[in-house]
């Protein structure tokens, strides 16, 4: 039915299977949209945020997806500016993941504000001294860049490519992609950093506050750095998941290996910087405000803010993946690669978690206690919404666009008749997309 839209020379599952898969994710999406509408119509009272937790799950999700989407700008930076040619085989996917992450972030920001109808005041009445202003501008602009980077991919669709204008447009955009990528890297550097600046400049919040250079606290640089370091982990992680689900090799090992190596070294140096920052903060910054380092962590039973979180973030999810990824032998073992990128993803998410929520949970007034927070179902649903949206975006893009340039080479198809005789594995409703020959679709 949709054969005409499917790229030449690749196998895709039958449309009914695809439809089933999309509707399963669509159900989650619909749930999220319902919660989102509730939030829009009834207001933020639908959340479990409060005056102590002005920022909560959503802002964490925002920061996390932006950090994870950092794979796009950093891969682009490596491909177009540093000239790592091999990465052209994964840049499409990195861009797509980035596009999903950034559109999700913007969507979350859209309902996370109390007055969405005048959210554009952040641009119109911009306070240039606010880190959030910088975030908003660079985020939006960079989303524009990602759209620009994604458009040529869309235009490569078999059907669209037939339109000469679209064909030429895609071609032209490819031609000057380095300019866009450079602009994207520039914007990313600032908004990733500004997101780090958000807690870093809060001098009323000793857990988040950091010294720095000029107007930029150390967290500014640490955030940019960590996004560049862990973003590729997420790109690899999603690529690996996609390969598993499609039961196809989509990107050659040397490409993954190169990205993993760069990511590993980035994490390695990042984590050294992070450790230095943590030590300086724990021994100099915090004590100057009357806090001992341990006062920032609570051993309350079931607490999300124990010292374990620091050990997990820096040790288990920082040092460990760095060591695996910089060791060629280890990162070439699939199990270790999987483990490292997974830990990396968790690590950067943990970092964003503490820098958003723990900052607010730590009591600053001596007569206050730790603040607790548990998200409402509306918050959970709206946070799962971008996940479902991402899966659908990837599924649709994968099905109809030549996202993986190496797919045809790695998965040569026999003549259609032969493929048709193959036994088709029965997919579960929410299961992976089985490959199918175009003839059967």
């Amino acid at each position: 039915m949709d054969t005409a839209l499917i790229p030449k020379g690749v196998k895709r599952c039958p449309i009914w299977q695809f439809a089933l898969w999309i509707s399963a994710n669509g159900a989650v999406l619909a749930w999220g949209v319902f919660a989102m509408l509730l939030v829009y119509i009834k207001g933020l009272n639908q959340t479990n945020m409060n005056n102590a937790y002005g920022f909560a799950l959503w802002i964490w999700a925002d920061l996390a997806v932006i950090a994870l989407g950092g794979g796009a700008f950093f891969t682009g930076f490596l491909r177009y500016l540093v000239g790592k040619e091999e990465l052209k085989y994964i840049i499409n996917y990195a861009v797509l993941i980035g596009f999903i992450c950034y559109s999700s972030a913007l969507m979350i920001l859209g309902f996370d504000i109390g007055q969405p109808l005048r959210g554009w005041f952040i641009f119109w009445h911009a306070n240039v001294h606010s880190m959030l202003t910088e975030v908003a501008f660079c985020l939006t602009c960079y989303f524009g860049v990602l759209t620009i980077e994604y458009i040529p991919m869309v235009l490569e669709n078999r059907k669209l490519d037939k339109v000469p204008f679209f064909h030429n447009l895609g071609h032209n955009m490819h031609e000057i992609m380095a300019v866009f990528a450079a602009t994207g890297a520039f914007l990313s550097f600032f908004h990733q950093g500004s997101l780090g600046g958000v807690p870093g400049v809060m001098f009323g919040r000793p857990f988040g506050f950091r010294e720095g250079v000029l107007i930029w606290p150390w967290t500014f640089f640490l955030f940019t750095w960590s996004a560049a370091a862990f973003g590729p982990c997420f790109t690899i992680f999603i690529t690996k998941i996609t390969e598993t689900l499609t039961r196809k090799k989509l990107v050659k090992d040397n490409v993954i290996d190169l990205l993993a190596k760069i990511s590993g070294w980035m994490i390695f140096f990042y984590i050294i910087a992070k450790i230095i920052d943590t030590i300086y903060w724990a021994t100099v910054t915090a004590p100057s405000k009357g806090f001992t380092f341990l006062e920032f962590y609570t051993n309350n039973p079931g607490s999300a803010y124990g010292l374990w979180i620091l050990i997990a973030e820096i040790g288990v999810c920082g040092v460990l993946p760095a060591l695996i990824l910089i060791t060629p032998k280890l990162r070439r073992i699939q199990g270790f690669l999987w483990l490292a990128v997974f830990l990396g993803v968790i690590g950067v998410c943990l970092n964003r978690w503490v820098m958003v929520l723990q900052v607010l949970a730590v009591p600053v007034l001596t007569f206050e206690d730790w603040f607790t927070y548990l998200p409402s179902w509306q918050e959970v649903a709206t946070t799962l919404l971008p996940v479902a949206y991402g899966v659908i975006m990837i599924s649709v893009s994968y099905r109809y666009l030549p996202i993986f340039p190496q797919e045809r080479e790695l998965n040569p198809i026999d003549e259609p008749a032969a493929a048709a005789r193959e036994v088709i594995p029965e997919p579960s409703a929410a299961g992976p997309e089985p490959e199918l020959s175009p003839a059967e679709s």
Partner: protein
Amino acid sequence: MFPFSFEWIWDAGHLVFHGGLWYALTVLGLGMTYCIIKAVLDAGKGKGDHHH
């Protein structure tokens, strides 16, 4: 965002921030304009027509 908003001041902060912003927007805008115009012209020349 624009100099006519009342909170605007011509200070270093605004110049640097908005300078960077408008620079990036200009690059993106000009780049896209270039691509689109060139695509129209190329299409006129018959480039990219698979059915010729």
